[in-house]
C-alpha cells in the first residue's frame, strides 16, 4: 500500500511558496530596473549614476542610520549594564525595563507625530518649558525618533547577552587589582564584542529602512525610503527608476546580513554565572539617575498621545472632553480599520507560525540535509535582509491585476514573508536544542513522522510557538513599510490609516488609533506571557515529578517501600 508521505511533500511545497512569494517578485523588481521600452538595458542605472539627486537621499539615510546605530548601541549597552551590574532594587529595574519596551508596541509613524506634539512649537514639553528645546524637523528629529525605535532592540540584545556573561571573571579581575576601565574591557566589553556588532548592524538596518519617522518629521530632507515612496506613489510615478532605487537599497541590507552571518558563525553560548555585585553607592546613584531619565524620557514623549484625545482642541482649548473618543467610536471606517488590522495580524500569526515552524522542523531535525532543505534555510534567513518597502513594491508590481490585489491575503503573505526570519530562527534554535534521537526512537516504536511531530516535538516547543505567534502578531499590527503599497479601501489597516489621517492633520484620531494599537499589542503580550508562564510551570512540575520518580526508583528499594 503506497502511502502519501507529507514529510516528503512539504519541503518542496515550502520552497515553491518561497520562490513564488519572495524570489519571483524580487526578480521582477530587477527586471523593471533593467528594462527600458521593453528591452534589456543598463540605461536607467547609468542615468542614475549621472544624476546625483538621489545620492542626497541615500547619504542622508546612511548618515542618520549610522549615527542612530552608534548612539543606540552605546545607550543600549549602558542601560543593560545598569540592569546587570548595579544593586538597584528589582522593582525599579522592572519598571525601567517596561518603559524601554513600550515603543516596540507602537508603529514608528506614531513616534513622529508624538515628537511633533511633544517638542514642536506648540508641543506639550515646549509649552511646559516655555521654549523650544530643539528642532524636531530634519535630521535631528529623525535621529531622535529612530533612537526611540532602535534602543529597545539594542537594549534587548545587550541585556540578553549579559545573561550569558561569566561574571566570575569580575571577581578574578577585582582580585588581580585591575582598574575600572581595564576590568570593564576584559570582563565585559571583550566578551560582548560580537553583541556590539550585532546591535549596531541591527539598529542601522532598522533605521536605514524605516519609513514612518522620516515621513513624519523629515521636513525638507529626503531619505531613501521617502524617495522610494515618491517614485511609486508620487504625483507622477516612475516605477522603473523606483525599481533602481529599490535595488540600491538592497545593497546595504545585503552587506549587513553578510556581516551578521560572519560574526554569528560558531557562536556558542554557555550559561552565564552570577556573582555578587560590589556595593558602590555612587555608581548605583548615577545609574539610577541615568536610567530614570531614559525611562521618563520615553514615557514623557508618548504621554502627549494620551492627552490630546481628551482635550477639546489642542493647544488653545484644554478643557477635558470625551467627545473625540465618542465620535471615533461612531465612525465606522475607523472601526473597520481596527478590525482589518486584527484580522491581518491574526492570520499572519497563525499561518506564519505554522509555516515557519514546519520549515524549522525540516531544517533542524532532518538527518539528511537535502538541497531543498538547504535552500529553504538560506531563503528563510535572507527574508529579514529585504526592506519591507522593497517587498511591498515587488508585490505591487507582480500582483496588480491579479485576484490577490487589494485583498487581506496579500497583506498576510507580505507580513509573513517580511517577518519570517525571526520566528524561524526562534523555532530552529529551540528544535536544535532537543534530543536528536527522539525521531529514531519514535520510529522504532512505530510512529509515523507526523505522529512524532504531534506527540513529541510540538509539546516540547509550546513556549517557542507562543513566542513566534506573538512576534508575528505584534509586528503585523505595527508595520507600515510593506503594507503601505498594498492596502486598499477594503483592507486599510491601522498604520496606513494613520498615514492617510496625516493628510488631513487629524492628530486626535491618529492618537486614538495609536492608543488602541497599544492596547491590542499589550493584551497580546500579556496573554502570550501568561501562556508561556503556565507552560513553563507545567514543565517544571512535570520535571519535578520526573526527578522524583527517578529518585524513588533509585532509592525506593533500599528504603524497602
Amino acid at each position: 500500500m503506497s502511502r502519501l508521505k507529507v514529510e516528503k511533500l512539504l519541503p518542496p511545497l515550502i520552497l515553491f511558496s518561497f520562490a513564488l512569494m519572495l524570489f519571483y517578485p524580487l526578480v521582477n523588481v530587477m527586471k523593471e530596473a533593467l528594462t527600458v521600452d521593453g528591452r534589456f538595458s543598463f540605461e536607467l542605472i547609468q542615468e542614475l549614476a549621472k544624476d546625483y539627486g538621489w545620492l542626497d537621499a541615500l547619504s542622508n539615510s546612511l548618515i542618520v542610520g549610522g549615527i542612530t546605530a552608534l548612539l543606540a548601541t552605546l545607550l543600549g549597552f549602558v542601560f543593560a549594564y545598569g540592569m546587570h551590574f548595579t544593586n538597584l532594587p528589582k522593582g525599579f529595574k522592572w519598571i525601567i525595563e517596561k518603559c524601554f519596551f513600550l515603543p516596540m508596541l507602537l508603529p514608528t509613524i506614531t513616534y513622529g507625530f508624538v515628537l511633533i506634539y511633544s517638542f514642536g512649537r506648540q508641543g506639550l514639553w515646549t509649552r511646559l518649558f516655555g521654549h523650544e528645546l530643539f528642532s524636531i524637523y530634519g535630521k535631528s528629529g529623525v535621529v531622535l525618533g529612530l533612537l526611540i525605535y532602535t534602543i529597545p532592540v539594542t537594549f534587548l540584545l545587550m541585556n540578553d547577552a549579559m545573561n550569558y556573561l561569566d561574571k566570575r571573571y569580575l571577581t578574578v579581575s577585582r582580585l588581580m587589582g585591575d582598574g575600572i576601565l581595564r576590568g570593564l574591557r576584559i570582563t565585559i566589553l571583550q566578551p560582548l564584542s560580537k553583541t556590539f556588532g550585532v546591535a549596531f548592524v541591527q539598529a542601522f538596518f532598522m533605521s536605514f529602512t524605516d519609513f514612518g519617522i522620516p515621513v513624519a518629521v523629515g521636513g525638507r530632507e529626503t531619505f531613501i525610503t521617502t524617495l522610494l515612496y515618491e517614485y511609486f506613489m508620487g504625483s507622477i510615478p516612475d516605477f522603473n527608476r523606483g525599481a533602481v532605487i529599490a535595488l540600491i537599497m538592497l545593497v546595504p541590507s545585503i552587506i549587513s546580513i553578510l556581516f551578521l552571518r560572519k560574526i554569528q558563525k560558531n557562536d556558542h553560548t554557555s550559561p552565564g554565572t552570577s556573582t555578587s555585585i560590589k556595593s558602590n553607592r555612587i555608581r548605583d546613584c548615577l545609574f539610577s539617575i541615568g536610567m530614570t531619565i531614559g525611562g521618563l524620557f520615553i514615557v514623557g514623549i508618548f504621554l502627549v498621545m494620551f492627552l490630546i484625545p481628551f482635550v477639546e482642541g489642542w493647544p488653545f482649548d484644554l478643557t477635558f472632553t470625551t467627545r473625540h473618543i465618542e465620535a471615533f467610536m461612531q465612525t465606522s471606517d475607523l472601526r473597520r480599520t481596527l478590525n482589518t488590522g486584527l484580522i491581518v495580524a491574526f492570520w499572519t500569526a497563525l499561518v506564519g507560525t505554522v509555516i515557519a515552524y514546519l520549515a524549522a522542523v525540516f531544517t533542524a531535525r532532518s538527518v539528511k540535509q537535502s538541497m531543498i532543505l538547504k535552500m529553504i534555510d538560506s531563503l528563510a534567513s535572507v527574508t529579514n535582509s529585504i526592506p519591507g518597502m522593497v517587498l511591498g513594491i515587488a508585490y505591487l508590481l507582480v500582483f496588480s491585476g491579479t485576484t490577490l490585489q487589494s485583498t487581506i491575503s496579500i497583506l498576510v503573505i507580505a507580513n509573513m514573508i517580511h517577518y519570517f526570519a525571526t520566528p524561524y530562527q526562534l523555532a530552529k534554535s529551540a528544535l536544535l536544542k532537543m534530543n536528536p534521537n527522539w525521531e529514531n526512537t519514535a520510529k522504532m516504536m512505530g510512529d509515523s513522522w507526523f505522529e512524532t511531530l504531534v506527540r513529541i516535538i510540538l509539546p516540547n516547543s509550546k513556549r517557542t510557538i507562543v513566542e513566534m505567534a506573538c512576534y508575528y502578531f505584534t509586528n503585523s499590527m505595527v508595520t507600515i513599510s510593506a503594507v503601505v503599497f498594498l492596502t486598499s479601501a477594503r483592507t486599510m489597516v491601522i498604520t496606513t490609516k494613520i498615514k492617510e489621517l496625516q493628510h488631513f492633520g487629524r492628530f486626535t484620531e491618529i492618537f486614538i488609533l495609536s492608543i488602541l494599537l497599544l492596547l491590542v499589542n499589550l493584551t497580546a503580550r500579556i496573554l502570550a506571557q501568561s501562556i508561556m508562564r503556565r507552560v513553563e510551570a507545567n514543565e517544571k512540575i512535570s520535571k519535578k515529578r520526573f526527578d522524583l520518580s527517578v529518585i524513588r526508583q533509585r532509592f525506593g528499594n533500599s528504603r524497602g517501600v
Partner: protein
Amino acid sequence: MKKLVRKGLIYLSFVSALGILGACSTSNASENADGEDKVIIYTNADEEPVQIIKEVLDANGFENQYLLQSFGTSELSGKLWAEGTDIEADLVTMSTFYLDGVQENDPVFKELSLDMQPIDDLPNYQAPMTTQEGVIFYNTQVLEEADLPVPTSLADLADPIYEGQLSISDINHSSTAWLLFQGLIDEYGETEAQSILADIYDNAGDHIEASGSGPLKKVRVGEVALGFGLRHQAIKDKKEGLPIDFVEPSEGTYALTESLAVIDKGEETNPLAEEMLNVILKEGRADLLQFYPSKLYETDDLTGVETAKNQKVFPEALTPDLLKKHASLVE
C-alpha cells in the same frame, strides 16, 4: 481500531492546519463578497467635500452601498497612473488635469452622460465638482506676537523676515502648491519666479507640507504664523472664530478644478457609480458652492457666496507635464 481512529484524527487536524491557507483566502473572499456590490470611491478631496459627498449619497438612498477612501493627491494620482483600470475604485474624485493626463496616457475613464450641463466645453469623461483657489492666510495672534506685517502678495512671502514663520505645501505631493507657482510664473516669468520660489522655500524650511491642508493646520495651532493654501479652508476657520485671517494675493487668485470620473471596467463597471456621480452633482453642488464659490454648471447659483475678487486663469493648459516642468523650478 483505536489506533486507526487516532491516526485519522491526527491527519484530520493536519489537513485542517493546512486548510488555514484556504480559510485565509475564504475569509478574504467573504470580505470581498460583502463589498462586491459596493461602489468604491477614491478621493483626494478635503474633509468638507468628503462630508458633503457622504451626506448626499446617504440622503439619496445609497447608504451602505459605497465605501469612500481618502488619499493624498499624489498617492491617488500614483495609483491611477500605475494601476489603470485594475484600480480597486469605481468612482474617483481628482484634480482635473491629472484625470486628463491619465486618460491621455491610457484610456481609463468611462464616457459619462451627465444630468447637468457644465459651462465649459469639457471632455466627456470628467464631471467637474469643485474649484480650489489659493490664498495667503495667517494666525492673527502669532503674527502680532512675532511683530510681522501682513503680506499682500505672493512675492512678499520671499521676504527673509518670514523665515521660519511660513508653511507651504510641497508641489511634488500636493497640487495646492501649484496655485502659488502659477501666480508667480504668470506674473514674473519663469526665471524671476524661480528665484522668488527659492527664497520662499528657504523661509518655509521644514514646514513644507505633503498635503494641501497641511499649512493651514500648522498656522491654526500656531506652529508658524502664515501659510499659503486653500481659500475656502481659511474662510471656514475665520467664520468659526479662530484667530485666522486671509489675503487674496495681488498677483491674483488662481484656481484648479477637481472632477468626478468613473473607471471604465468594461462589463464589470458598476452601474451605480455613474448614478452616484450624478446624484453628488445634482444634490451636492449647492452645498459645495458654499465652500468653493465658482460657477461650474449652468444651474449654479452664486447669490450669497463670497467669490474671490481677482480670479485668474493660467494662460497655458494645465497638464501633468506642465506640473512636472514647474516642479523642476525648485529642484
